[in-house]
């Protein structure tokens, strides 16, 4: 029990440190929200507005206490996030939660679908490669997996949008669903959501499955060489049962932590992809916030991403021992 408490405490500390560091770092960005607004006004032909006029308008449009020292802003901010108040977005003039909240399901849809695809395809492929170890299929797949695994997802995204989106016009190049449809649980809407999400999901899936496949292949080969497997074969167990109950289970187990970490990236994993596909999700608003130096909105995005990651890792940590009793025993249970 004390281990669990300690582990949770450490997670909370991690979140605290990351949030504090983010708070400081975003303020080191050149320019601030006021500069951004001032720039907007100057460029909108407000060049003839006096500085006082511009500052007055800016003061009227922002809710941040610009004159307060940073440490006061920090204490205020930390106090309010503990109370669940993430502040108001400077650019959107709405509570941060109302900007990010509606975007969350869309991001989760993209990243979760991509993760599901990469994991299932990767694991199946890896297992198959292990069984065919040394064959042409294995060698080719390993090569392809390595290449794809080292390709950044945005490169694939740009290629997909250029060819399948613009050149051949097979898929939409932006948006979440066709505007004519009524959102709800109806087939045309869901189909449209899937259709619009296809390229972003593919961009992430194409580069993701190789890693899982290679891990799975390695693990499976190791398991296949184990004594207990030889015993199982000698016992005359069906191949199918050996493959699933003996090999797959044991080969997947070491990948559990990786999977939980991947689940932790569910909010932050699609930042660039969402911007390439003009897909208004969490990452999309995060980039907008960074450009506009919208501190509260940026922090909201960072906190969401951090918390998800820490929760993912903590869950992996706390449950690993339960999944794999060999790893039980206090501190040594840490899975990463």
């Amino acid at each position: 029990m004390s281990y669990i408490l300690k582990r949770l405490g450490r997670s909370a500390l991690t979140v605290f440190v990351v949030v504090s560091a983010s708070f400081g770092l975003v303020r080191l960005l050149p320019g601030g929200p006021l500069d951004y607004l001032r720039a907007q006004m100057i460029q909108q032909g407000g060049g003839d507005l006096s500085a006082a006029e511009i500052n007055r308008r800016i003061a009227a449009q922002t809710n941040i206490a610009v004159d307060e020292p940073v440490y006061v802003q920090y204490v205020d901010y930390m106090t309010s996030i503990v109370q669940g108040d993430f502040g108001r977005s400077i650019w959107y003039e709405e509570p941060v939660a109302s900007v990010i909240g509606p975007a969350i399901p869309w991001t989760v849809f993209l990243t979760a679908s991509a993760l599901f695809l990469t994991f299932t395809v990767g694991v199946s492929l890896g297992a198959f490669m292990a069984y065919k170890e040394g064959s042409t299929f294995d060698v080719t797949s390993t090569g392809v997996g390595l290449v794809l695994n080292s390709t950044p997802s945005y490169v694939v995204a740009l290629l997909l949008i250029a060819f399948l989106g613009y050149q051949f016009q097979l898929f939409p190049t932006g948006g979440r669903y066709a505007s004519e449809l009524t959102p709800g649980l109806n087939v045309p809407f869901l189909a449209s959501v899937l259709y619009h999400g296809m390229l972003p999901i593919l961009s992430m899936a194409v580069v993701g499955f190789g890693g899982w496949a290679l891990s799975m292949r390695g693990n499976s080969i190791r398991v296949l060489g184990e004594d207990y497997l030889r015993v199982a074969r000698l016992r005359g167990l069906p191949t199918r049962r050996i493959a699933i109950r003996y090999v797959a289970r044991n080969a997947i187990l070491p990948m559990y932590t990786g999977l939980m970490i991947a689940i932790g990236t569910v909010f932050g994993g699609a930042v660039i992809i969402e911007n390439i596909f003009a897909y208004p999700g969490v990452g999309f608003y995060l980039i907008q916030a960074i450009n506009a130096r919208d501190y509260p909105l940026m922090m909201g995005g960072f906190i969401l991403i951090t918390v998800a990651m820490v929760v993912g890792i903590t869950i992996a940590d706390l449950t690993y021992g339960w999944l794999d009793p060999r790893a039980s025993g206090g501190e040594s249970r840490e899975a990463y």
Partner: protein
Amino acid sequence: MISAAGLTAGLAGCGGRQATQNGTPTDHNSVDDSAPTVELDDETLALMQELAYVTNQALPVLPLQEKLAQSFQTTDDWSVPSKDNSKMQTYWPTDWLPREGEWTASGDVERLTLAQWAVPSDSQYNPWNTKNFAEPRRTLFDRFMKYNLDSQEYTGYLISDWALDGQTFTLTVREGQTWHDGSPATATDVANQIKLDIYNGGNLGEFVAPEDKGTVADRVTASDERTVELSLAGPVNEDILLAYLQPKYLAAHEGTYGEFVTRLDEAGSDEERSAVIGELASKTVSDPVGCGPFAFENADSQRTLVSKFEDHPDAGNINFPEIEYLYKPSNQSRWNGLINNETDGSATLFMPRNKLNQLPDSVQTTLIPRHWGLGLLFNHEREPVNDVRVRKAIAHVINRESVAKNSGAGTRSKIAVTYPSGLTSEFSNQVEGTWLKGVTDKFETYGRAESQTEKAAALLEDAGYEKQNGTWKKDGEPLHIPIKGPSGFSDWVAGAQTAVSQLKDFGIKAESVMKDSSTYWGKDYSNGDFVVGLQGWASYNQSYPYFHYKFLYDSHSAKNYWNSPSEFESPVLHDDLRDGETVAPADLVAQLSTGDN
């Protein structure tokens, strides 16, 4: 009497800037589109020439190029005037052509598809909130007047008629103008629009209530259902009033903004007014009641849909039921939208040569003069450019033709300035042919298409510099010219880099320092933290020369950001206007603004 009607080809308008900075629109908040019809008398022309001469000799800024905005229309399903037709010369085609029945569906199409910068569901239509005032505003609201570049005239639109009588300016509202909720758009609404603009710091305030905004309510009044009266504080040139009024959109719907007008009218102090303005500035209107030919339907993450408003006076000219504005947050996505026939047009968009080549034949590209362009701005309190000889040397070294060519990236959208003088309309040769007719030989060109290094060397030597080992130095220190600019404006960056390389070849230690756009505008530029900065050298919003000289000599930017002195030394062009070489250009500008000339 010299008539410059037919000459000014004046227009300005929104949006010419190229890059979207950080994914936000640069093409928004169009409070511009204007250029007056001018009947110039000799004295006015002489004043303008004198200001042009002072600018040419003192170089508070070095104009490099003028811009032509590229505007796109597809012609397969749509019937639009050809690109050479003068009807295309209205800012902007997407604003006016549908209203005039000049942009019509020729095939079986239901919907005109255009683009917008902001996420549609995040867009809003309160013009006094500077954020995300999205493109559908062009069809949701009507402009006060139209400026026709062909006839060089203002024609009435929402304001169907006007008259300046002494110090009273009377506006008549078009008959049959209706808000989308069915209520009539009246003189009160127009007065409210003008009042809210003035309370927000709009330029008309300078002529209506220069001292005390408490008098606005008495000076802008609706005398009946269709008549608005502006009581002016002094004599004003009508062209200037029209230039400020013409581009306004009527957005001040009583139900949405009436409360603000009442509170502002009744406010007892500037502080009270500031508080109300602050509230107004943060009000978000996502479902607007407009008065234009299309009414707001809905907006999601991908598009805004507006539908034809049958009660609009021009509804009969429109033969398609809907316009949709798709979310296209980058130039690239807009290029592709046009290349792939996804969108039917773009009011203004910079498209480089390699992309233009990919456009299908059905897309026509119209070039629209912008009366504005890239210039080098000198900070008059920073060495070495506080010395006019250094500024002139820089002007001689820079080959503006090659700057314009590189900046235009293979398009014909940038034209090098021939006479750096603060006058626009290079594209139609009117600087030489009209504004400076008969006096051009007095003007220095500084070498439009060449590097006049000998002249530059003479100027620098006169200023105490000496060329050592290929580098110009004074007291052992090299002549250092850092040029700052916004990195997001890719065409400007290309132009600046060309200038830098020319200066370097000549032996000046020049460098280009490009900053994140919001840092540049919000910090460096507005704090005067630059030696040479990139900026448009003419008024962004108007084309009449008065506005350019006001911007160069009597604007907040000139006085505070570039630290422009109130007096310059310059030889005299017209003896009857000035005595001696010392001149206060702002005084000449003020003389232009009154109706006395």
